[in-house]
């Protein structure tokens, strides 16, 4: 029970301080849920993020997958609830929209978070990458995603699918084993 409450609290504050940004939450989960609390493994975290990415809809619902992995269906449902409840803040914000002068302050705050998040995400990539990029094919898949998205300018989702497909083809090519 305390484990569930702890878990939901982590989901809550991680969501709030990152403004619900799926990839930005990853470094936080890697530290809190994986390293400090050992609730899930690095591999499970990456698995949850991958399935959140391939399924339709918003990516940050990979949190529901993490909830399932740690506490079953109850965890999946409650973590989703904790994720969406702060979203109700949009209602008062729409209401006072025109008076919202402090909005530039919030913009600055978000820019600050964005900038440090870049460093944190690179850090998470290095840490998680050490467990995943262990042979040639994973490295090729990893590089293909980046090349497709950034050089060929294919959208992120399609790059992900195409690079994964390439990995599967390479996996079945006997010459690499």
């Amino acid at each position, binding site marked *: 029970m305390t484990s569930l409450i702890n878990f939901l609290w982590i989901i809550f504050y991680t969501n709030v301080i990152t403004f619900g940004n799926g990839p930005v939450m990853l470094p936080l989960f890697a530290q809190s849920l994986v390293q400090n609390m050992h609730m899930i493994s690095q591999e499970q975290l990456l698995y949850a993020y991958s399935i959140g990415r391939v399924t*339709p809809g918003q990516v940050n619902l990979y949190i529901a997958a993490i909830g399932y992995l740690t506490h079953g269906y109850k965890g999946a449902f409650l973590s989703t609830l904790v994720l969406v409840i702060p979203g109700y*803040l949009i209602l008062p914000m729409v209401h006072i929209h025109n008076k919202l002068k402090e909005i530039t302050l919030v913009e600055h705050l978000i820019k600050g978070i964005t900038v440090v998040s870049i460093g944190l995400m690179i850090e998470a*990539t290095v840490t998680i990458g050490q467990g995943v990029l262990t042979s040639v094919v994973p490295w090729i898949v990893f590089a293909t995603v980046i090349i497709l998205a950034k050089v060929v300018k294919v959208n992120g989702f399609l790059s992900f699918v195409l690079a994964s497909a390439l990995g599967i083809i390479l996996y079945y090519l006997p010459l690499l084993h």
Partner: protein
Amino acid sequence: MKKHKMTYKKLFWIFLKAGLAFGGGLAVIFAMEEELVQKHRLMSKKEFMDLFALARIVPAGGVTAIAIAIGYKYKKFKGTLIALFAVMLPAFVLTVGLAALYSFFKASSLFGLFNYSIMPAAVGLIVISAISMGKDIVHSPLLIAFAVAAFIATFFFGMNVAMVILAGAILGVIVFSNVKEGHDLPY
């Protein structure tokens, strides 16, 4: 332009359809815009874009915030529940379903395949997200220093990631409020 009437059923279908869009949050938001603005003419493009701008600063992700705002606009509190339920249903069912299959995959030979496909691809996606977020800051040595400091603090010193983010938020307010537009920063 005549605006059409909203029913519970229509609200549900519009958001379910948006929730079925592949490609993450932005794809879902584009699908919402297409349904609400272009197809059903329930709101103007400007109204939707204003909402989109506000949703970015709500801690829950843009999709959630927009679903709540639009659900409330047409059907009050009950509308928020319907819109949220519909927009999250596909992702929730599929993500949790695949999470439930984790131990099955892990025990089967399929998991080896994942290590050669979706797992390294997901690591690539994290890099892409970082690059996309970073494309505005590369012209500012000050901001690059922020990002590098965050990396060093966590990677070499194991600092608490939440603390680093909070520090970024506070420094962001201090620095950006004091630097003139177009001076050092591209914003």
